[in-house]
């Protein structure tokens, strides 16, 4: 009895697989696309080689001072020679180790958050939000444990940017949660106060809030109270961003069905317990992208403090490029500053996408 012998599968035709097919479907699928591809390639050809040439091939990487920059490309020597200013601001040079320690500590606590299998992840996360700020405050401010005090006016550069962003993020989230709960409260006075607070801060630009913090706060306080400039900026930033945070979280709260709260009540949980154990975990998970977007906005907005005279990364770059010892290094300076912001913001948005995927306990089909 002849058995059925299937013939071996033929490979797909050469035009349906591999790079040729990829080119055909992705770049040359229609006359319009052919034209667009050609135009885009031409534009890329005109732009990319000169930029690469400027940034890498004909750039000056090593040397001292303006004299080392002779090749006509980017003068990265400038960044190298001013790196201390960009990172530490005017912090005394003998105390740089304190900031370095903090950077290392931050990295140790934060980097494991990216790895799912790391065993002490939750512990590290809690340490990051509780113990780390205390250590950071002690190390940065000094004045105890035999550390010489460093006044906040000397803080600057990347250190100051990170301080502003970290304090802003750590403070804006809880305040935002409280405001969001207040806005959905059944008590009319609390609700009205929350709405007024949120809409007031959301309606004005951050600059005017910072101006207000630097011009009006001294007026509001009893005579003779001297308020730290950094603290004033921080108050402004936290007020402003917590209002945005509240609106994001409110969106999450609205998405939780009323049955959840009723179920919590039926179990005999108090208001705060039902919020903390039932509603908020679900609501916050829903709005992770929005929360991280607010964090990113906050991080970018820290640059605005240079307008009220604080010395963040951008301000330090700005002051360094106007130094007459260097000629025309503004592009290099801005590229450096942009890159340092971009790394943090892009990292945050990628982290949020990862978190969102992992926490997605919804029913996938």
């Amino acid at each position: 009895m002849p058995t059925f012998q299937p013939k071996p599968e033929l490979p797909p035709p050469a035009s349906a697989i591999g790079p040729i097919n990829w080119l055909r479907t992705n770049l040359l699928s229609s006359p319009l696309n052919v034209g667009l591809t050609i135009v885009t390639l031409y534009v890329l050809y005109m732009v990319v080689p000169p930029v690469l040439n400027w940034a890498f091939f004909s750039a000056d990487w090593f040397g001292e001072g303006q004299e080392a920059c002779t090749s006509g490309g980017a003068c990265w020597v400038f960044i190298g020679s001013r790196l201390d200013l960009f990172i530490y601001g005017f912090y005394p040079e003998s105390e740089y180790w304190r900031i370095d320690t903090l950077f290392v500590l931050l990295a140790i606590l934060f980097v494991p958050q990216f790895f799912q299998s790391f065993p002490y992840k939750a512990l590290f996360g809690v340490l990051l939000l509780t113990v780390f700020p205390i250590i950071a405050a002690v190390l940065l401010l000094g004045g105890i444990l035999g550390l010489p005090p460093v006044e906040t006016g000397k803080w600057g550069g990347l250190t100051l940017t990170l301080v502003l962003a970290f304090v802003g993020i750590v403070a804006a989230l809880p305040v935002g949660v409280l405001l969001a709960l207040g806005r959905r409260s059944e008590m009319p006075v609390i609700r009205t106060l929350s709405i007024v607070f949120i809409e007031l801060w959301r309606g004005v630009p951050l600059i005017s809030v910072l101006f207000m913090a630097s011009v009006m706060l001294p007026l509001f306080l009893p005579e003779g109270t001297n308020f730290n400039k950094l603290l004033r900026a921080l108050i402004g930033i936290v007020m402003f961003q917590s209002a945005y945070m509240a609106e994001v979280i409110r969106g999450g709260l609205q998405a939780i069905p009323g049955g959840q709260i009723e179920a919590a009540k039926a179990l005999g949980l108090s208001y705060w317990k039902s919020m903390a154990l039932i509603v908020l975990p679900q609501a916050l998970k829903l709005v992770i992208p929005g929360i991280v977007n607010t964090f990113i906005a906050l991080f970018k907005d820290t640059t605005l403090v240079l307008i009220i005279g604080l010395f963040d990364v951008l301000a330090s770059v700005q002051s360094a490029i106007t130094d007459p010892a260097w000629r025309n290094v503004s592009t290099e300076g801005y590229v450096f500053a942009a890159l340092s912001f971009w790394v943090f913001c892009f990292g945050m948005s990628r982290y949020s996408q990862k978190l969102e995927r992992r926490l997605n306990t919804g029913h996938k089909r």
Partner: protein
Amino acid sequence: MANGEPNTPQTTRTPFWYDPTVRSIGFQVLAALLIGWFFYTIFRNTLINLESRGISTGFDFLDNPAGFGILMSLVEYDETYSYGRTFVVGLLNTVLVSALGIFIATILGFLIGVARLSSNWLIAKMATVYVETLRNIPLLLQIFFWYFAVLRTLPSPRGSVNLGETFFLNNRGFYLPAPVFESGASVAGIALVLGIVLTAVLARWASRRFEETGRTFPVFYSGLGLVVGLPLIAFFAMGAPLTWDYPALKGFNFRGGVRVIPELMALLWALSLYTAAFIAEIVRAGILAVSHGQTEAARALGLREGPTLKLVIIPQALRVIIPPLTSQYLNLAKNSSLATAIGYPDLVSVFMGTTLNQTGQAVEIVAMTMAVYLTMSLSISMFMNWYNKRKALVER
């Protein structure tokens, strides 16, 4: 329990502080008292501080002469005008840069958003790179870049970048020809208004006829003809009453034409490019939100590519796009206050900056400035709510 049922005397009475109603009233009274005390303290402190600094309160200062010049003004202004006038100048400059920025950012944003969804891999990737780069760099840095690294390093007027002897770009700004209207030009203007009104009437008539009979009318093309054609006919009928005032190099600087100051260019460019990245994401999300089944259904009904887009996809995508789009417009308007960092004379820079420093009337000036932005944002969000209600999905 409150009316004390007689047959259960052993039930322990709930202490009043466990009563939700009592608690809620207690909390609210406490909150109100705290806020009241807070504002009272602030008010008292402010009065004391102002008195000790010798600043009188009130809005009388608005009539005093300002005594400082402003780089750019849309209305007549010089040092002799009052502080109140500086408010108007700043406000108009803010409105100008916001309006132009919204216009450019919308066009760019829609283009890039569509490009991100393009079937052309190269275009889609380039759009992605654009969005991911610009979104993650602070706006202030971008403004600085355009102003200090690009526009400030341009050649002086003598070495201007010359575009066909009509447009000139140098470190003093961008010079373009100014239109000079002669007598009779107003007729063309009237014709333009007439064309717009006629188009509106036509659109209403066409939509009513469509509702009644189902017959369509090419409103777009006839409207285009009315809005563009009528003024053109009027313009040429009056003998083309328009000449151009070209900028020309006289000595060290340009004379004539319209000068766009570099501060405005840098701010406008940075604001538009930055906001366009956000708008692109909104547009992309809006288009993706319309499920592919809608396209297939439209095709099954026999609609071609154009009508599918116009009648099925875009109306549904707009419902998702418009609310976040308005909040981006609002952000752009608020971000225009970053002008103060490069010296573009907007409301914050002129009024909350120079005027405040000169007069010291911090409370009044900050309140006025914030009131402007608040009015703007509250009215836009009111419009948004109205629009949302109109366009919201009507479900049975």
